[in-house]
């Protein structure tokens, strides 16, 4: 019995942690930069493939590859915002129209990134072995690579939390998400902050991708699934709420690990029913206002 509970908790934490990372990334992008980034999952895929390439071809440890991934994905995100989205912003005066158009642009990006990736890396599943051994707690076998992923997720979340709550840039980001115009009046360079947020969103996606590649095989069309999960978690948690994303991601992870034990194929059904019921009870998400 206690074995089962331990398994459920670990499983829930591991997948929930990854979902949370992904969703926090999307929250950064939507909450501040107002971009419902449909290509978010593609950044996950890119992160995963960079890690895979560095690991299998250059023989670098996946952990090191993950660290290399961070500046790369950040730069892609930052530059994309500084060019495309900045230009769009200058061209679209109304906030509503900007949101719609920004989503369209990210659709275009999704097509392009996925297709380019497919040209480079192909469409077949890829993978590598990393820490594929286990130890036992009681009767429960615990895979070390998954535990490691959990560990990294926790560290990243803590760093991210401190960044947002304790640093000057973090506070500027939060302020911008609540009232961008007033943030501008404080002397915050709002365009830069948005680009940074977009970049951070991309980093979080990249990290998630890296981590996923350590425990799962990857392929170039994997992105969309994660985009969907991120969208749902972000709304479940409450738009723009970073803690909401964290909680939402973990809930999703736990629901998954519990339902998996009852009937794996009901997983998605239960999950969506849960989301819909929750939204009806709390129309602004768990931690939304």
């Amino acid at each position, binding site marked *: 019995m206690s074995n089962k509970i331990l398994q459920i908790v670990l499983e829930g934490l591991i997948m929930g942690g990854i979902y949370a990372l992904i969703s926090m990334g999307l929250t950064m992008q939507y909450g501040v930069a107002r971009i419902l980034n449909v290509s978010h999952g593609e950044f996950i895929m890119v992160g995963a493939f960079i890690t895979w390439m560095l690991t299998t071809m250059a023989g670098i440890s996946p952990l090191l590859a993950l660290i290399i991934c961070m500046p790369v994905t950040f730069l892609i995100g930052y530059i994309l915002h500084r060019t495309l989205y900045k230009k769009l912003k200058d061209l679209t005066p109304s906030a509503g129209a900007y949101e719609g158009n920004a989503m369209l642009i990210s659709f275009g990006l999704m097509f392009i990134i996925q297709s380019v990736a497919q040209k480079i890396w192909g*469409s077949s599943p*890829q993978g*590598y072995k990393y820490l594929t051994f286990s130890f036992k707690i009681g009767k429960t*076998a615990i895979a070390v690579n998954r535990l490691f992923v959990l560990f990294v997720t926790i560290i990243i979340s803590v760093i991210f939390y401190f960044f947002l709550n304790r640093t000057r840039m973090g506070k500027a980001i939060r302020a911008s998400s609540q009232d961008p115009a007033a943030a501008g009046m404080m002397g915050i360079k709002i365009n830069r902050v948005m680009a940074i947020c977009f970049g951070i969103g991309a980093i979080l996606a990249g990290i998630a991708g890296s981590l996923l590649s350590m*425990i*799962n095989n990857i392929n170039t*069309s994997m992105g969309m699934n994660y985009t969907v999960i991120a969208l749902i978690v972000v709304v479940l948690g409450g738009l723009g709420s970073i803690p909401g994303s964290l909680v939402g991601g973990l809930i999703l992870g736990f629901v998954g690990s519990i339902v998996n034990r009852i009937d794996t*194929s009901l997983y998605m059904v239960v999950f969506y029913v849960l989301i819909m019921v929750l939204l009806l009870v709390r129309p602004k998400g768990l931690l939304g206002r």
Partner: protein
Amino acid sequence: NKAGKTETTDPPSVDENVGTEDTGKDTQPAAEKESIVFGGVRSQSGVFATFDETAFGPCYRMWADKVNAEGGIYVEEYGKKLPVELIIYDDKSDMATMTRLYEKLILEDKVDFLLPPVSTAFLYATAPIADKHGYLLIGAEGGSTTLLDSIAQYPGFFSVLNFSVTQVPALVDILVENEIESAYIVYIEDLHGTEYSGASKPALEEVGIEVHGMKAIPPDIQDMTSIINDAIDSGADAFLLFAYPDQNFLAMNQAMAMGYNPDVFLVGPGGNFEFIKGVFGGAEAVEGLMSWGGWNEKSSEKAAQFAKEFLEYNKDDPKVSIDWWGHLPYYTGLEMLQQAIEKAGTLDNARVIEVLKSEKFDTVMGEVWFENQLLASECYLGNVGQWQNGIFEVIDVGENRTADPIVPKPAWPAE
């Protein structure tokens, strides 16, 4: 880029062809015919792109180039060899696009022959279209027992891949031979998964192998810890997973990590590809793993020759690796079509269909023929394979066997 493909982006040649064809394909022996046009709609992007990239895709490209290198296919009607021309469209893994584009191939491009789309469901959708317009269609990827019920409706439809009908009995024989007493079945919730699991359970139980568990998994599963744990707890001798590479590899990864190593570990499509070794860091990682399919260089001289040519042809494309299940039958299908055209001496699909139904063909698989529109089961060189020392050995009970099965499976290699 392969020669056949570049031609698809070259509309003039297609248009010329259409022009000549417009005057009536069946009525006049059009003397100016310059090539035989084969058209297909393949998923070159989206979730099914991996099929075109690794399964049938490399085969038809290689075949077209090889035929053209020999000057083409001799068609008596025209009194000369006609080169093969390919028109391949991308359906972006979308069914509606796929069916529409087949109609374009037929109605607008007026191709001479059709090449199949990816996967079973897509084949199902295409068969009625081909049939309606009198085209023959030799399916590649996919096949299922549901097909058997409807295949007679579409007399021009043929299938070359072996599937549960021959594979499940072969597997059961192997399990019995190795005194396996119990099995744990996991299957993906789709046509393929339901079919294999549906066929296996009664077959296993009939010979007295207990089925300890039977779990369905969704295609987007991310974590199989609970399933592996359940399989461990069930204590079953054999772990049978009827799913696709994504799920199969996830299960293998987690089984390795959790140290789950049953006597028999079989995964569905995916385990039969050469590239699986790379995914898990080398041949020793998959030692003892079973999967469907089965042919290799030892199966026959012709098979060995094919493997050599295939590797030579694709040596510059790292994305292509050999498929020890499908590549041989896929290529065989193409050769059968080619020979049927030559034998019929015409591009008239109806006559070619007659030839395909009645004749035997000499192909990379040896002498083969269709029986009830399926490749006769005697033709196959193997139904179940097992990785042994980096070679995908055929372990069927009987004369196709290239190596004895290793049961129990050796332990996953330590990190």
